[in-house]
Every structure is written in C-alpha cells, then in structure tokens.
C-alpha cells in the first residue's frame, strides 16, 4: 500500500448490481470501516469526482448513462469495478440483458472481485486506484497540465 497523497473523491454508480455491493461501498464510508480517514469522500457530482466506482454489470439501458458519467469526469480519472458482476458479469453473465462487465463499455483500472465484495477489499481497491490516479496526474502535469 502506497502513501495516499491525494484525497480521492468518489462517484458511485449502480450499474445493474443486486444492491449488495452498493451498500458495502456505502458501509466503507461509515464508522466501522471509515474510508473518510483516507480522505475518501462520496460526491454526487461527476465533474468533481476523481474515481468512478461502478457496481454491477452493463446492460443495454444503462450503457449510455455509464458512458456519459465517464465522459463528464475531468482527466485524470480512474475506474474501479466493484464486485464480480462489474468485473465479468458474474452470476448474471448468461442473462439475456447483460452485455458483460464494465470493461465492455469504459476502460477499467482496478477490479475488485467478491459477491458481495467486502469493505476491506473495496478500500484496498480504492487505494490502488489512487496510486494509478497519482501516476496519471504526474504524467499529465509533465505534459503541461489539463487543457
């Protein structure tokens, strides 16, 4: 685990998950796990978010919404897929309405498996996401910053 030097702001979107991972993401932010001690803050605004946390797979109806949310976020940005459904489609892979994991629509940086993913695993995934975020931010700065 690297040093956390930037406070990541999260944007949480429920793809087509069963709610299990969603409430675990929320549980991460509450007293027992308290990801806020790492500076993680849940925001509802995609334009202020650094890390997009997606639970659940992609279906034809939410594909456009996910893409739109990703496009609205400013560079640099990181995508963390939470739960086995977001990684590959999980138990719903064979359902007629599921196109697959989140990586069918947008590039994913960190995969957190589990059904439902445990808060410890989610926090670990977010910290890995922050490392990637810092690398990208440094690279962007060396190029002359965000246009």
């Amino acid at each position, binding site marked *: 685990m690297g040093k956390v030097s930037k406070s990541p702001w999260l944007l*949480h*979107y*429920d*793809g*087509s*998950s*069963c*709610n*299990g*991972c*969603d*409430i*675990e*993401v*929320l*549980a991460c932010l*509450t*007293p*027992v796990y308290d990801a806020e001690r790492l500076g993680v803050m849940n*925001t*509802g*605004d*995609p334009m202020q978010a650094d890390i997009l946390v997606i639970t*659940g*797979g992609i*279906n034809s*109806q*939410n594909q456009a*919404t996910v893409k739109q*949310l990703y496009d609205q976020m400013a560079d640099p940005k990181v995508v963390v897929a939470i739960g086995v459904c977001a990684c590959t489609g999980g*138990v*719903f892979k*064979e*359902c*007629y*309405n*599921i196109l697959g994991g989140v990586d069918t629509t947008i590039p994913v940086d960190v995969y957190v498996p589990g*059904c*439902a993913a*445990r808060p410890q695993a989610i926090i670990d995934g977010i910290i890995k996401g922050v490392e990637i975020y810092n690398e990208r931010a440094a690279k962007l700065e060396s190029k002359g910053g965000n246009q």
Partner: protein
Amino acid sequence: MGKRSVIPFGPQHPVLPEPIHLDLVVEDERVIEAIPSIGFIHRGLEGLVKKKDFNTMTYIVERTCGICSFQHGMGYCETLEHIMDVEVPDRAKLLRTIWAELNRMHSHLLWLGLLADGFGYENLFYQCWRIREKVLDLHELTAGARLIFSVNKVGGVLRDIDEDKQKIILNTISEVEKELLVIEKTFFNDYTVQSRLKGVGILTKEKAHELGCVGPFARASGLNVDLRKLNYAGYGMIDLEPITSNDCDSYARCYVRLKEIYQSIDIIRQAISKLPADKTISVPVKGNPNGEFITRLEQPRGEAFYYVKANGTPYLDRMRVRTPTFANVLGLCEMLKNTELADVGLLVLTIDPCISCTER
C-alpha cells in the same frame, strides 16, 4: 398559473444509491406530476431458470437483492417445498425466522441511516450504520458472510445456530436495543427532524388501499397488513402484532420502521427460546418438482410473492418474483403530487425503494 417545466430526477442522484428515473413536472417549485421510468438495472434473472437447475437457482434468486437476500431465497425454497410436498423440520423453520428478522433489522437500520442522510443529518446516518454493523457481524457469525449468505436450500437450511452463538445473538440484540433507545429520541423528538418529516408526503388510507401499497409504507397509512400473520416459516409459533400508524406522513413511516426493529428483536428472542432440542435442520429432497405454486411473504419492504411452475425436469418452466417496491411506486407518484421540489429526494426514500429487486 405558473409556467410548467419538466425536471429530470436520476438515474444517478446523490440521495439514492440506486438508479431510478423520475420526470418531475413542476410549476414554480411545486411538483404537479411525477412520471417514473425504470429498467436501468434489468438483468433478466428470471430467464436463468432455463439454464440452471432448480437447486442452483436458490443461490441466484438470493442475488435478486443484496439487502433482503435471505428472504428471497426463503420464498423460493418454500415455494418449491410446497410443490414437492416436503415438510421442513421445526428447527429449520425457526432458524429461517431468526435470519429473516436479522435481515429486517439490518434493512430498517440501513433505511433509517439513508433517511437521516436524505435530510442532511450526517451524524445520525453514521450512528444508524454503526449499529447496523453489529447485525452484519451476527450474519457473519451465524452464516459466514455479511450480506448474501446462502444458507437456504430446498428442504431446510445449511447451517445450525448452536447455543454459544445463540447467546452471542441475544447479547448483541440487547446492545442494539439499548443503542436504538438513544437514537430513537432524535428521530422522534428532534425539532429539525420533525419539521422535515411531519405532514410531508401524505398518502391517505383510502389511496394506499386503492393503489395496493404494501409493507411499512402501507402500515404507516393505517392499513393493517402484515403477511407474517400468514404463518409461513416459523411465524406460526410466534406472537406478533403489526405496527401501524394513522398519521399517513413521512414521520409515520419513520415511526413504523423504527418500532419494527424492536419487534424484530422481540421475535428473535421468542424464536431462540422456542428452538426445539431436535437438531435436524434439513430433510433430503428426492426427484424433480412438478406443478405450480405461489408463496407470499413479508419482506422488510412489504409483500413479495414467488411463483414457480415446474415440469418434472431439473429445469423450471417459469419463476416469477413480484417485489414490494413495484407495488409502492404507484403510491410514491401519488404522494409526490403537490409537494415541494426540495422534498422529492426525501420522499422517494420514504418508500424504501429497492430498485434492484424490482427490475431483477
């Protein structure tokens, strides 16, 4: 008359963890009409019955919803047990009751937290979720997982709760009860909380009945409906009286759900004291189901029904779940009429929406 405009609400919205989309027709700041559109999380879970055999489907049905997953599994198993004419041992029935009530406790605490977050009382939100973690620890202790714990099977349950664990459950729920008594004061007496909840989002008893509302949402409008009185699982061995309120507003919904946590604590105590000495927790099931049946049960959010049609092979013909949120969305749209735009987020929360269940 002011100019009418349409404001979209969702699918991604800070107040909701799940995507629901409402088109709000507003006149100045007042909502005239709300038009819901759902389908963002539709997976097609019911279609999987063609591909997975009926035993494997138990684990998939539990993944209909992560919050009330145990009750989904229980409903599906009970339906198949009726079709296959299997009599579940008493101990398994009472164990199911205990897990179902633990599920209800964590669901209601979750909702109270989200409600507090909805009206901007973040501290209260944290307190509710802190207490909720204790219930989740009990899930983990007794079943091995926090949310989706797959202890149901057709013919009984997979794990027993021994005496040491029973003691831990009893101690923990007493702690939860004590801490709830502290929080209750804020929910019931705090001036700011009352000003956000009292008299907001009124749904009359007649309307609630007409629109077929279910669960705590209907009980808060004075309808005495509680399917636990149907005596499924081990509820036949337990005394309970449905909690209702005649206030019909958001405050009443908060009141009903908070009081139901105490009721669940009471039911768990009764169920543990009535656990029989016979340690059989499941009976073997042979052959494949043939026939059809409907089971109804009371989830934390209200009535859910399970329909199964089997044809004598391991693969079922049809499996259908009707979930409580689907019944309550109509009530929500009625309730949203003539409310302030600022209250919409909170009012959507008061029906305790579980969109994942609804769209499957």
